[in-house]
């Protein structure tokens, strides 16, 4: 975008005048830092380190959107930005609301701070720049397309960033019936299920080891625009939420989802033949389970698998209060059974049969093992 020379001179003038009339660069950045980190302010989403949040909030740290002048960031702050964007080559889905709480001066401080923190080396933003933009920008919220039309990237910076078109699942806000996809999921064997339940609880179930891997509710289901469905199948499905329940699994420790999404390893962390600690213990049987398939019960998946001579079914649906998931198991022939449910600070776990210890060990008599349910829901105040 050609910068109007008059505008440039004005900006320069005001920048200099800012320095002349008492606000040194240091002071500006100090004020900006304090505002940035204020309660309910930028920091809540973009984080103290400016790195944002994977998949939702883009980073300000080293952001390519900040480069080549501040018109774009001023516009986003004043009018907001709705729609997914790519920053430094990664996708982010959350919208940015217009920052109506800050006057021109405060916004200039904040943007100056962002421009010069975390190794960023962009110019100081002046109160006048913000005031000018507030007057002249169109009143509506920007979409990535309208924003970049007005403030396109300099060719030097626009290789990886920009916009993309979301599809199907990005549009889903309310799940009304269960959605079941078999796809590659982080933290699971390659034979994985991603399931969305009405009421917007989501889980990953691993058919390679016949176990529930994790459950989440905030941040939406897996992305529908991942290449998986149109491309060669390379990517692992992405989602934004943090699981409220992630039971202990065999060989994994505390690897992050980012780590578990890697596809380019020379060797795996482990293979399923080495899997241990299958959560269900039937009559002391230590065999690994065999996946047999699943049936849709009113659209909800009822997985079936076997351990030794015992067949297990596991139906996963919403709990009656619609606040979490309900896992209903049957074991046939019935037998003395324990189920290891990892306790979680983020989730409450209850059951309708057997004895559940604080350590999460559920013990069932043969009679109770015929059919029993486990209820898992996020604790209040948590996710």
């Amino acid at each position: 975008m050609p910068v109007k020379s008059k505008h440039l001179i004005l900006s320069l003038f005001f920048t200099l005048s800012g320095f002349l009339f008492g606000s040194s660069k240091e002071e500006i950045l100090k004020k900006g830092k304090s505002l940035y980190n204020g309660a309910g302010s930028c920091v809540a989403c973009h984080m103290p380190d400016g790195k944002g949040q994977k998949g939702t909030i883009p980073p300000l740290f080293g952001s390519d959107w900040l480069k080549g002048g501040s018109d774009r960031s001023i516009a986003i702050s004043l009018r907001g930005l709705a729609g997914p964007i790519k920053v430094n080559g990664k996708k982010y889905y959350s919208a940015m609301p217009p920052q109506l709480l800050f006057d021109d001066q405060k916004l200039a401080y904040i943007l100056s701070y962002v421009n010069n923190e975390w190794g960023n080396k962009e110019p100081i933003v002046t109160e006048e720049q913000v005031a000018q933009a507030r007057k002249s920008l169109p009143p509506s919220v920007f979409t990535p397309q309208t924003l970049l039309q007005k403030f396109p990237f300099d060719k030097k910076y626009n290789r990886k960033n920009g916009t993309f078109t979301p599809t199907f699942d990005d549009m889903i806000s309310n799940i009304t019936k269960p959605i079941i996809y078999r796809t590659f999921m982080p933290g699971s064997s390659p034979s994985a299920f991603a399931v969305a339940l009405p009421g917007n609880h989501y889980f990953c179930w691993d058919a390679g080891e016949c176990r529930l891997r994790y459950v989440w509710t905030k941040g939406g289901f897996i992305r529908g625009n991942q290449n998986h469905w149109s491309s060669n199948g390379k990517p692992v499905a992405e989602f934004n939420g943090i699981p409220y329940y992630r039971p202990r699994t065999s060989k994994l420790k505390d690897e992050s989802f980012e780590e578990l999404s890697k596809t380019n390893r020379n060797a795996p962390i482990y293979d399923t033949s080495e899997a241990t600690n299958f959560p269900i213990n039937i009559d002391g049987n230590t065999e690994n389970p065999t996946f047999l398939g699943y049936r849709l019960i009113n659209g909800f998946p009822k997985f079936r698998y076997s351990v030794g001579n015992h067949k297990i079914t596991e139906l996963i649906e919403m709990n009656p209060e619609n606040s979490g998931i309900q896992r209903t198991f049957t074991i046939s022939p019935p037998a003395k059974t324990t189920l290891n449910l990892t306790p979680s600070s983020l989730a409450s776990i209850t059951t309708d049969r057997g004895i559940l210890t604080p350590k999460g060990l559920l013990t069932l008599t043969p009679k109770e093992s015929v059919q029993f349910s486990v209820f898992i829901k996020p604790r209040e105040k948590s996710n």
Partner: protein
Amino acid sequence: MKPWILLLSFLWMPSAFCETAPQYSVTNISAPPTKFKNTQIDGLTFLPNGKLVVCLPSGEIFFRDNKGEKWELFAEGLHNPLGVIALSNSELIVTQRPELTRIRDLDGDGKADDYEVITDQFGMSGNYHEFNFTPVQDTQGNYFFALGTGSSGDGVRTITRGVFNARGRPGRMHSSTPYRGCIMMHTTTGKTLPYSYGHRTPNGLGFDLKGNLFVTDNQGDWVGSSKLFHVQKDRFYGHAASLAWKPDFKGVPVDSPVEKLAKLRTRACVVFPHGTMANSPTKVLAISEEANFGPFTGQLLVGEMNKPRIVRVMLEEVDGELQGACIPFIDGSPLGRGCNRMAWAPDGSLFVGQTKHTWAGGQGIQQVSWNGKMPFEIQKMELTEDGFQFTFTQPVNRENAQKKETWPFFRYFFEYRKAYGSPRSAEEKVEVNNIHISKNAKVVKIGLTELKPWHIHEVKIQDLTSKDGDRINNNYIVYTLNRLLANTPPDPLQIKKPKN
């Protein structure tokens, strides 16, 4: 429009004139209403009741009513289904990445509600290239399916399914989890076994009418040019990685001496020369009695991804092994690129599903119909003692046919080597010695000055017309001459040793 664009479009036009033979018409079929944007077709068959079945990369399976062109969603959420068999109107067998799966509609509402694992007794490293291709069923009820190798375009994931085998991991295309690069058999007694070894990207199994099993493979490492193999139990077909799972094979397959591997391998019954015949062959479909497709019953059709082309294959048994010729058949516009899956419709026409998955190809469904008029084609090409015998669908114009320059033969071979693909090696012209035309002018015997086994022989027949003056529809035919009718010398291996 700028003048240079006009000029370009004129230059482009001649290729648009490369059209499907006039006796065959191509009709576009409306795409299924997928929730996802692409309409690539990775599985295609017909139900006993005549409805078309297609599988999409989205994991959806649709049925199409032949009358109303109405699509019904039958199943969804599958992981890259790459082939389908219809056992009944409500029961399908599908290969998807993790399994061979039986999908049934139990309550009769027209939507699948039960997904049963027939077998998942094979590995997945999670590498994107580990496709699970095209289930087929033999007359006894055994299932066969084809496992692709992993690609060096990516590694393996954090958790792999099945025993991780580091011996199969090195190499361009790898086999680090059980049986990648094998054709698998799932027996009627419930056992899942590797049936043959040495496949790279075996995108398309199919039986001929005699019950022989065939599979294609794509050019790449260890595959000098794309191929068609006659799949037989426990044989090795050349791609090294899957030898990691062959019980008697020791060491790291890709580091084994090439000569050792070359001695182990079974040759392709047909090689598709890269660039001229096929770069990425797909499904094998026999031209059945039910097909209404011209005088080619018993021959095979093979799809090709890169060009708008379906290849026809004719085989014969020579010295105990199958070998034969391939020729473009349905070729050029309006046929689309990416011909990946094919099946015979109840009316005997051919339905073709197209795909690409980021490679060259296309998307959509087309129907190819024969109008019943005899095309002027090479009906078959067979080996003789000193050359080849061509049988035509119509009498040939004797004047053209008896000229030696009508038959410019070339021969060459593709090296067997670890590197990606192979150039044509030792390519030379082969002189025609004599030409004999049968009384009815339908059979032409070409005697060559030399017939060299273990070499590919190709000819682009020049200016041949039928007796009635029709131009031949397809004049480029390639015979993979492994064995002679008698006294075949041993396989010269034709290896390329890696430079030290």
